[in-house]
């Protein structure tokens, strides 16, 4: 963008407003508040036998007031907000009462996130979030809410432009939606808890509309039925819960992942998805520090997995997000997930399948831990049953033993590590199994730790510190010497001066 002036040249010129069509969008959105307020008013006034005309007038007055207030606020916000792009920086001036001037250097821009909810889309608007790598508080994102769709696209292209612009992705998209993937959507804990949560929420809503009596009667009727015929009612309710949860999960999947397409453009990754709210995230590849293959228990049993990024400068998920911002794929078949992860990381998919297992001592350690937990639980239960005559308490240790042993064995089987050409791979986790491929040049330090019991079984935990993602990624319970060798080979030269190998005397 050599055509753009630098900040010094342009002085105070070049400031552009946000899109004026925002007023229409917020006007439409304010109707939601109007609906809520009118419902509340109706409930209040119907109880006091006002004349119908009076009620209508009151509701209309409230509606006009609310829309006017929202429009006035949005108008003031639009008038006071200006942004500009210079050769070095992206700047934003905003604030109705407190003026703010924020500016981020363009070479710090890591990601550009475009987002358009249905109302915004109807008016051709997009909300632009520009992420930088700063971890310092709220300053890691600059939001332009909203720009017109064309401006937003142009800004995205300009901010993430690279030398070899124009060369389209040669090998097609990395992944594209197949609706058959929706079968993985219900494989999550939310399927079993979601419906119950939804019912709770519904009860609350009914309550606030003064229909508590109705909801209460329904609930007590249900309770009577459950206590009268538990053998029929409980399985039936559980089944209904599961079906409702699965349906909800499928709908959520459709909303989040419809039109999903993951592409590699030169030097960056582009992710597009969303049915009602359309999201488009562009991520600079040189800010990518690795990928994560995530297999939660239920999804793993169904043969699925998903891919997430390990990146610097990717904002945290907002409160209303239905999906993790780091997610690169929806739940997909495991082989495809491994393939996508491998292509992003630039390793062969076979690497993900062939990790070096950890020593048997790691498994012994986990089994001993499970048995010790069982022993403590049993002792506690024995003590409790001495004081209180509740024999079913013994269920707790009886369930804890097989569960603990399963977690121990599965956890040990998950452990693994490998060294790719540019990546360090590590896998762990019994319930939520994760395979991390961390770029070796992204490793900014090592922590080795060894508890008393680990020392006795010759094990070590190696943590790679990195600026991206969670900040540290662990290779758990690897053999002492293997772990040190792994770290030494992953970042050549760093560790060598501090290592003592067999036969070579310590360099003092």
């Amino acid at each position, binding site marked *: 963008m050599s055509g753009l002036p630098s900040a010094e040249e342009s002085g105070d010129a070049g400031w552009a407003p946000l899109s004026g069509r925002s007023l229409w969008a917020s006007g439409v959105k304010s109707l939601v508040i109007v609906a809520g307020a009118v419902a509340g008013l109706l409930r209040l006034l119907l109880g006091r036998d006002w004349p119908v005309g009076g009620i209508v007038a009151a509701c209309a007055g409230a509606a006009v007031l609310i829309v006017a207030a929202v429009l006035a606020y949005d108008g003031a916000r639009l008038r006071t907000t200006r942004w500009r792009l210079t050769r070095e920086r992206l700047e934003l001036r905003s604030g109705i009462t407190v003026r703010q001037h924020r500016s981020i250097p363009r070479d710090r821009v890591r990601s550009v996130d475009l987002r358009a909810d249905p109302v915004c889309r109807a008016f051709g608007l997009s909300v632009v979030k520009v992420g930088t*790598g700063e*971890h310092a508080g709220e300053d890691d994102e600059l939001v332009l809410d909203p720009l017109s769709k064309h401006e937003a696209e142009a800004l995205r292209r300009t901010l993430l432009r690279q030398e070899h612009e124009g060369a389209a992705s040669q090998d097609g998209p990395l992944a594209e939606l197949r609706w058959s993937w929706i079968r993985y959507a219900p494989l999550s804990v939310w399927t079993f808890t979601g419906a119950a949560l939804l019912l709770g929420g519904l009860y609350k809503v009914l309550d606030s509309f003064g229909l508590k009596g109705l909801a209460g009667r329904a609930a007590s009727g249900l309770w009577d039925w459950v206590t009268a015929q538990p053998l029929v009612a409980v399985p039936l309710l559980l089944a209904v819960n599961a079906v409702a949860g699965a349906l909800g999960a499928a709908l959520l999947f459709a909303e989040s992942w419809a039109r999903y397409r993951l592409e590699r453009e030169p030097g960056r990754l582009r992710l597009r998805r969303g049915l009602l709210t359309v999201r488009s995230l562009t991520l600079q590849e040189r800010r990518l520090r690795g990928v994560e293959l995530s297999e939660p228990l239920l999804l793993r049993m169904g043969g699925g997995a998903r891919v997430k990024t390990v990146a*610097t400068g990717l904002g945290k998920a907002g409160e209303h997000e239905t999906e993790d911002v780091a997610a690169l794929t929806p739940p997909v078949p495991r082989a495809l997930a491994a393939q996508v992860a491998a292509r992003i990381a630039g390793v062969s998919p076979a690497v993900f399948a062939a990790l070096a297992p950890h020593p048997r001592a790691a498994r012994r350690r986990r089994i001993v831990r499970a048995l010790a937990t069982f022993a403590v639980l049993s002792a506690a239960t024995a003590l409790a049953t001495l004081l209180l005559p509740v024999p079913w308490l013994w269920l707790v240790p009886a369930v804890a033993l097989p569960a603990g042993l399963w977690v121990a064995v599965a956890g040990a089987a998950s452990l693994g590590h490998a060294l790719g050409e540019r990546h360090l791979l590590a896998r762990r986790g019994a319930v939520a199994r994760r395979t991390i491929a961390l770029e070796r040049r*992204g490793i*900014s*330090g*090592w*922590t*080795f*730790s*060894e*508890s*008393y019991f680990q*020392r006795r079984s010759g094990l070590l935990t190696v*943590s790679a*510190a*990195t*600026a*991206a993602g*969670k*900040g*540290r990624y662990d290779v758990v319970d690897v*053999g*002492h*010497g*293997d772990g*040190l*060798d792994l770290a*030494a080979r992953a*970042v050549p*030269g*760093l*560790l060598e*001066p*501090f*290592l*003592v*190998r*067999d036969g070579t005397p*310590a*360099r*003092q």
Partner: protein
Amino acid sequence: MSASTRLRPPRNQADPRAVPWWTVQWLILMVPVAAAAVAAYWILTERPVLLGAGVAVFAAGCVALALVAPRAYYRVERWEVTDQAVYTRKGWLRHTWKVAPMSRIQRVDTARGPVQRLFGLADVTVTTASSAGAIKIEALDHELAAELAERLTAITQATPGDAT
């Protein structure tokens, strides 16, 4: 070769004055605990002999721990700064070694608490871009700490890149 690869201990120990300083810290914590146990025994109970012996052992244990722990820590805490990296070891039951390359260091801080100042000691904290990567070198002579911080700052400023 792999089974016998080990980490050698870093070269330097904390300043010897660290032992009295840590002892003071431990005593500040432990003496009230021991005193409270003894006081509770004296005031609240009928002073049975067996319980008295238990309380005495507990109080003596607290004070003994306060005297022994700093010496044990002093023996295991070591640090080293080369031109390429910062390297520390600490921990008694759980050993922890940390290595950070100079090129990834973003910030160097020194800190001196009020009691620490009486002993002429200071801590140096080295922060990298990772939220988990901070390394603390504890209880150095305060002049040595200032000098070390200056040297680290000079080295890191000479290294290009944004250290992520």
